[in-house]
């Protein structure tokens, strides 16, 4: 049973560039959430997708956008990258039918901005 998979594992970009991160949810899950985790901090909620729509958004600027596909996989796009965007980006999946249950996390994409 495949868990949550994310790609790429590591990525290096320069300021001003754009980046796309990808996530495949755990089998049977239909909801995907994205988090940003700075070094030494807990994950910060970016947004959640269900039925290809953004359901809720955290305190992140419009430079952060996302998409969910019919197969439930998801992408996180970040435009006009800043040095402060350097972080571990985590994807978590869950099922809408068990919304109070814990989310399952991937191992993240480490994004470094030079």
């Amino acid at each position, binding site marked *: 049973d495949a868990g*949550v998979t994310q790609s790429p594992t590591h990525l290096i970009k320069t300021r001003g560039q754009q980046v796309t991160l990808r996530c495949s949810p755990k089998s049977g899950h239909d909801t995907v*959430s994205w*988090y940003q985790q700075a070094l*030494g*901090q*807990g*994950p*910060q*909620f970016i947004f*959640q997708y*269900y039925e290809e729509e953004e*359901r*809720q958004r*955290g305190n992140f600027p419009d430079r952060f956008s996302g998409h969910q596909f019919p197969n439930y996989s998801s992408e996180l796009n970040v435009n006009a990258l800043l040095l402060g965007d350097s972080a571990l980006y*985590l994807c*978590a999946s869950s099922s809408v039918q068990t*919304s*109070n*249950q*814990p*989310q*399952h*996390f*991937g*191992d*993240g994409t*480490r994004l470094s901005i030079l």
Partner: protein
Amino acid sequence: EDQVTQSPEALRLQEGESSSLNCSYTVSGLRGLFWYRQDPGKGPEFLFTLYSAGEEKEKERLKATLTKKESFLHITAPKPEDSATYLCATNTGGFKTIFGAGTRLFVKA
């Protein structure tokens, strides 16, 4: 504003030395208190969910408890392999999960 605070930030123990990690929360309408373990370079791994005050869950050397304002993760006779960052998180009924900053646990043999 909903908030989750964990203490201490870091904890160093000798193997076999039991201790507790604290998670205090201020949320409107708790719908779940979660504990995760995170190893370096990995995503959080689920440990426990607690839903109501007085509830307790156990797994090997770990035991999680919940009151109306805080949760504790008790570690009994820890081993070096228990070294990790332990994260506490809450779900307040929306679609957003709020995490604390974590406690980094180091267990020395």
